[in-house]
């Protein structure tokens, strides 16, 4: 997008990004302390688990979309695709497909939407937000069609088939102590994402395309391919988020998921990833994810209606973008 601006900033983004990450970390601790002081029974193990569980699916969405945002793109279809992929998986499970295969189908649907978005943006050169807005509507429609507008449920712990599902993806109760198995998945994802972004060609080209796409093209690199890959990564993460969401909340309602993408994007931008592309980090995103989930759980513990949270998320996004711009200007 505004690749010209960022190309000169690329010389010292590490420090800037690091500063904002530190700032975000301080904000996270401050928010946590405030809720612990004023919230109703906030400072408990149970609430901590709540925050953790809230972070699973936002975490997967946010880590995936970090790759896209670093290339200077965006994905508005995250939330609806997450629900849609979970729904397609559930419906195929209901139709007699083995449960493991249904989960793989869930992942596949996410990847397919990622491929669709990526091809539209990189090869057909559509503006990212409009292409993903189109696929958002497709995902909304698809989830309603396959489910015949009926709510479906993932198997609970007591279910005949797939009772292991929540144990594997949410938490397991071992003689009274609850072990958050979902957190292992999240940590695994974070480790892999950090390695991919910082140590592989995929990561290098993701940054390069985001900071100066034209220069990368002129140096003989197939830009289209490297712009497509982040969308596929995000698609995979979105499918995975569908599974994590299913494990945490079990209930999937068709035609929902709008607004979740904003939670994820807010987390990414809070973590110091610039919407202009070329700058960003996974660790920052993770901090942003926890800020979002602490806010959600904390406001709930103070009995604030969910509507206010919507207002707050909107304001947070606007403010985070504002800070992002200010940082660019200071240079």
């Amino acid at each position: 997008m505004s690749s010209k601006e960022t190309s000169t900033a690329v010389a010292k983004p590490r420090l800037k990004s690091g500063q904002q990450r530190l700032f975000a970390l301080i904000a996270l601790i401050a928010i946590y302390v405030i809720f612990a002081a004023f919230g109703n029974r906030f400072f408990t193990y149970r609430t901590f688990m709540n925050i953790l569980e809230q972070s699973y699916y936002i975490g997967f969405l946010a880590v995936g979309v970090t790759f896209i945002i670093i290339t200077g793109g965006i994905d508005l279809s995250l939330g609806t695709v997450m629900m849609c992929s979970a729904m397609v998986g559930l419906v195929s499970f209901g139709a007699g497909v083995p449960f493991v295969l249904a989960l793989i189908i869930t992942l596949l649907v996410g990847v397919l939407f990622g491929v669709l978005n990526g091809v539209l943006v990189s090869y057909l050169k559509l503006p990212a937000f409009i292409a993903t807005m189109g696929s958002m509507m497709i995902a909304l429609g698809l989830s309603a069609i396959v489910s015949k507008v009926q709510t479906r449920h993932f198997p609970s712990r007591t279910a005949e088939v797939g009772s292991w599902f929540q144990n594997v993806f949410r938490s397991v109760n071992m003689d009274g102590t609850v072990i958050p198995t979902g957190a292992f998945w999240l940590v695994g994802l974070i480790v892999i994402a950090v390695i991919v972004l910082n140590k592989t060609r995929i990561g290098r080209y993701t940054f390069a395309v985001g900071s100066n796409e034209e220069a990368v093209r002129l140096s003989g690199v197939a830009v289209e391919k490297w712009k497509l890959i982040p969308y596929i990564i995000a698609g995979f993460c979105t499918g995975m988020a569908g599974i994590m969401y299913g494990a945490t909340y079990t209930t999937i309602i068709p035609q929902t998921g709008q607004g979740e993408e904003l939670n994820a994007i807010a987390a990414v931008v809070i973590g110091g990833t610039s919407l202009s592309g070329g700058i960003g980090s996974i660790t920052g995103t993770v901090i942003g994810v926890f800020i979002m989930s602490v806010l959600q759980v904390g406001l709930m513990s103070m009995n604030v209606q969910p509507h206010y949270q919507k207002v707050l998320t909107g304001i947070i996004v606007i403010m985070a973008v504002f800070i992002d711009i200010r940082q660019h200007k200071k240079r």
Partner: protein
Amino acid sequence: MTKKRTFAGIQMGTILALIIMCVVLSLANRNFYSYDNVMGIFKQTAFNAFLSVGMLLCLITAGIDLSVGANAVFTACLMGAMNKAGVSSGLLMMLVALIAGGAFGFINGVLLTRLHLPHPFVSTLGMKNVLWGLALVVTGSQMVSGFPDSVQWLGRTTIQGFPVSFIMVLIVYVIMHIFLSRTALGRSIYCAGGNIEASRLSGINTANVLTFCYTLSGVMAAIAGIVSVGRSGISNGANATQPYDTDAIAACVIGGASFTGGKGTMVGTMIGCLIITVLRNGFSLLSIQSSIQNIVLGLVIILAVLMDVLRANMEAKRRRLASAK
């Protein structure tokens, strides 16, 4: 302005598409060309047509306003909240709605121009969430009905079956057409979209022009909110998740507006609005469920933008060839 010819070309194409759709639907379903249904189409178009005015202005400036749909729902809910609180004057309700809608549009404009957020789609998306939440907050997420007649007049009244709201749309479109093509401010909106730096250097206060566009977009959304209250008799905060914004974007882009800015006409947008409504109306006549409508509309948007991108690429290529000669 050599672009004029392609403008006309696009519009001929879209008009042709509209006519073909109407013919096909008339053949497929006898009810389509009944007087009631045609009037129903006009009535349905009004809401989207008002939203599209604001959307078009923002698109011309190379921006976008994703908060129009939520803004319309919010203003409707604001009137609902006033109704619940015992305000009996419909005029006051509408006035407050218009001011509130305009104010949120103004905030969008200020965020973009004074605080220099370069991504209107992110800040307006944030604003969409804010307005969605506020719509639920002011009404306590309840549906409100029983509005005074003066509020419902615009959306409900018909003259011999012809909806007043659509007459209003036509008046607004004619005024906006003259405004965009004949006045200095209107022309400077196109200039700002074509090349913002050049228009700033040539003495146009681009910040004010952009702020004006977003404010007007908010006011138009408020009018759409009033229309929706009249048409349905209720205000419902849950409607904020409906894809109103995408309908408006689709109408503008089908009508020849471009995301790169500087393009788009009121006439084209009008045709775009009619195409969207005919599409939705035809789907419900053929009893195709709304979820498939969403998929098709999503594809329509992608296709329309794709054509726009291809057009821009071809133009760039032509220009390159011309300069090479």
